[in-house]
């Protein structure tokens, strides 16, 4: 039972990937749909998508760092 933390890290990493994937996928889908409807607004749409994308990515990478810390600090 002493290696249970590795199980938790594995599940947690999977959840991080699922969450980040859903988030980035929804952002990309929204941006693509918006650009398809209104191609002339593509610059504004991309600028508006950038910031939440990077915030999302930051949260995901924080989760990965903490998962790594659980493995290393054990």
């Amino acid at each position: 039972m002493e290696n249970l933390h590795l199980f938790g890290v594995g599940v947690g990493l999977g959840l991080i990937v699922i969450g980040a994937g859903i988030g980035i996928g929804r952002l990309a889908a929204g941006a693509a749909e918006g650009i398809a409807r209104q191609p002339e607004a593509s610059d504004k749409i991309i600028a508006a998508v950038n910031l939440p994308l990077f915030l999302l990515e930051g949260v995901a990478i924080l989760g990965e760092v903490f998962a790594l810390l659980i493995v290393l600090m054990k």
Partner: protein
Amino acid sequence: MIAGGEQTHDSSVMDQVGDNIIHHVSNSSLDHPLIHLPLVFGIDLSVTKHVFMLWIVAIVVACAIIIPIQKYLQKNNPVPSGWMNLLEMIVKFIRDSIVKPNIGSKYTETWAPMILTFFFFILFANGIGLIPIFDLLGVLNRFIFQVPASDNHNIINALLHGGVTATGNFNVTAALAVITFFTILIAGTRAHGFINHWKNLVPPGLAWPVYIILIPIEIIGMFVKPFALTMRLAANMTGGHIAILAILSFMAIFAEMFNSATTGMGVALFSVPLATAISGLEIIVVLVQAYVFTLLSAVFIGMAINVHH
């Protein structure tokens, strides 16, 4: 990647791989710094490899950015050519698509230089970490000059893991984020005055119970912004390197698991192209992270200046 492998002969490869990777991406230990310096007020100022990388970054930025721009500005006929074309394009991009939309045209000229400094410093610090020049020096040192890996006083051995990203160290990015933190305060103070800047943290005209919740949240948020900047940059720069090293380490792990060198070579057929592909991805990450740090700094400064309540 090269040095740590031979330090412990009795333990198995599996035990060494993790230490080797961490040794590569982390700072050199304070027992074996590059240059020993005395304690100042109880703080060890010895030069470690990340400090050394910061010096290299400073020299490269000075040679590649500051000196050409100074020369260009002193010319009578300012028509950009060669390297200056690229610099002008980058500077114009940062000013027009990061600083101006987020900070506003009134304060663009005030804060564009700082955002540009952030961008070039982080870009070069990230990029220099990807160039394996010190690993190459280590190969030369080991196989041509025949210096053993255990020799801690050899300068190249001390530098051997030096080809790391200085921005992969949390302390470096924390220092950058602290600069952003104080810039937000100064920008808000310059735009609205000291008292008004602090009043602007919360929207006016709400019922008083809301403020009991809102004021602590805003104060926590003030510190979370630079913390998120710190973690994002450092974790991104460390994570990519760990991924590359872990994939390369599969060769050693599988070779030991099946007890044959042929298996290791077979795995190399997969892991070397994969590591190359991730290195390519890292080039994008280097550019994007420099962009993100500057963009978020500009957004936070803009939030202090353009208060939407």
